[in-house]
Each structure stands twice: as structure tokens, then as C-alpha cells.
């Protein structure tokens, strides 16, 4: 290898390492573990809760507020972990990478918020199949949000984004088909969908992305 080839190889190494070093994991493994576990619990509880409450006008609020609570607890966990990590690395909490991730995620979350407002204000007009559609919409928008971070996210997070997006697409078409076959499907279907996506996908991601650590030797 001559000096020019070596120089080119070294420049490639520098570029690759710099790109890798600026990777930002918007969803940490512990956050995914907490979010996934909470989602499984919420799915289990709402699977029975929604059918019982469809007789009254607060069925919509029950579904939406329950899942908003899951989001809130998961977001609080993520914030806590980000602050701990920033302190450990002696870096500012609002790093440039975090701001970039926030900006990338914002459009999908804004649209998700607006879609959810419809669920909160629908009242008695809400149909159980609407809960399913809202869950599917959340999954697709969450997937789109994660994919928007893909130019600086690790591969596992990009794959998680695709998993949510494709599950949402499958849920949209598959759900419509199942509604025709089984009129009772939406009640349990939304719980199953949320358990598989927000529950199981997050747990798989947490297992793949869990940090492995040791101790630092002396120089």
C-alpha cells in the first residue's frame, strides 16, 4: 500500500468514526424496557376495561388517558436517564444531538397529538374501532418519528421505526378486514396491537440495545 492509498484509508477511517461518534440514541434501552413493560400492563388492563366501558360515554377518555399516562411515565423515565447520562459524561443535558433528535421527532408527535385530541373530544360518538385506528395511527407516527432520526440514530432504532411503521400499515388494512369478519374484534384487537407494538417491540429493542459495561483500568 503506497502513501496515497494509506492516506485515503485513514481519511475514510476518520470519517466513519466521526459519523459513528455523533450517533444519538433518542430512546435508551432502559426507557424502552420501562415503556415496553408499561405498555404490556396497559394493554392487559384496557383489554377488559374498554368493552366494559363502551356502554358509557367515558370509554374514549379511558383509552386515551390511559395511554397518555403510559407515554408520560415513559417520557419521564427517558428524561431521567438522559440527565443521568449527561452528568456521567460531564456534558450539557440539552446537547446538540438531543436538540437534533427533538426537532426530528417533533413533527410526528405534533400530528399524533392533534389526532389524539380527536379521541379526547369525541365523547359518545366514539366507536371501539376508533380506538384501534388511533392506536394504529400512533404506531405509524411513532415509526415515522423514529425514522426521521435515522441519519444520526443507531441501526437498531431505525429498525424499530420501520417495525412500527410497517405494523401500523398492516394494522390499518388487517384491522379493516377483521372488523368485517368479527364485529367484536376492535375491543380486544387494539389491546393486542398495542401489546405487540408498543409492548413487545420495545422489549426486543431494549434487549438488543442494553449497554454492557466494565471498569476502567489505570493508564
Amino acid at each position, binding site marked *: 500500500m503506497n*502513501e*496515497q492509498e494509506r*492516506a*485515503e484509508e*485513514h*481519511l475514510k*477511517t*476518520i470519517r466513519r*468514526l*466521526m459519523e*459513528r*461518534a*455523533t450517533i444519538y440514541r433518542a430512546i435508551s434501552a432502559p426507557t424502552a424496557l420501562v415503556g415496553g413493560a408499561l405498555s404490556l400492563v396497559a394493554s392487559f388492563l384496557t383489554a377488559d376495561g374498554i368493552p366494559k366501558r363502551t356502554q358509557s360515554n367515558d370509554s374514549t377518555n379511558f383509552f386515551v388517558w390511559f395511554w397518555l399516562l403510559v407515554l408520560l411515565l415513559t417520557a419521564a423515565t427517558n428524561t431521567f436517564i438522559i440527565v443521568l447520562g449527561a452528568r*456521567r*459524561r*460531564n*456534558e450539557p443535558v440539552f446537547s446538540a444531538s438531543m436538540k437534533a433528535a427533538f426537532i426530528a421527532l417533533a413533527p410526528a408527535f405534533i400530528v399524533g397529538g392533534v389526532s389524539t385530541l380527536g379521541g379526547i373530544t369525541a365523547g359518545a360518538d366514539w366507536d371501539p374501532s376508533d380506538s384501534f385506528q388511533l392506536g394504529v395511527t400512533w404506531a405509524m407516527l411513532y415509526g415515522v418519528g423514529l425514522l426521521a432520526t435515522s441519519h444520526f440514530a443507531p441501526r437498531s432504532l431505525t429498525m424499530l421505526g420501520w417495525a412500527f411503521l410497517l405494523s401500523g400499515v398492516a394494522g390499518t388494512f388487517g384491522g379493516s378486514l377483521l372488523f368485517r369478519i368479527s364485529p367484536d374484534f376492535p375491543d380486544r384487537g387494539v389491546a393486542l396491537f398495542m401489546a405487540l407494538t408498543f409492548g413487545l417491540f420495545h422489549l426486543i429493542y431494549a434487549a438488543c440495545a442494553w449497554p*454492557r*459495561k*466494565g*471498569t*476502567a*483500568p*489505570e*493508564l
Partner: protein
Amino acid sequence: MLDFDKLDKTIHEKGRLSIMTLLATKPSWPFQDLKAELKMSDGNLVTHLRTLHQGGYVAVTKAMLDRPQTSYSLTEKGRAAFQDYLRVLEQIVKAGKS
């Protein structure tokens, strides 16, 4: 005509170049993060870091958090040397293409 001797021999080694590159991306890197990112053995990484430290390119900080943590950062001299090294590399590549 390019003088290849201009290339800083301390940096012109793949392991040390990788360390310098990572240190240039953030203010400080804990040892374990460097090790995980570069997939080097403890001994190999320590040897390269020692060489860079002795050359005055890398500063070492020891802190007591949950457990003892050793972090590394580029010194002013190290940052300037890395930038000079990059310039020479670019010149070599350009000269080869012209």
C-alpha cells in the same frame, strides 16, 4: 513534491488515529466508551493512550462518580496536531489525484 515526513508519526498509526478522531468529536470520553466504540482490548487501548498522553496530545481526568472513572480529552496541542495531520492527509490525496 510532498514531504511524507510531515505526517505526525504519533498520530499516523490506525489505533492512535482512531482515538484522536473520537476525542475530537466530544469534549471528553470515558475509557469504557472509547473501548466500546473502538473495540480494542484494554491493554491495546491503554498503550495507545499512554503514547498520546506522553506526547502531550491527550489529557487524563480521574473522577469519583458511582465508581472511579477515567476520562480522556484532547489538549490544545493535540487538537492542533490532529488538524495539521488532516491537512497533510488531504494534500497527499489531492496530489495523487492531480
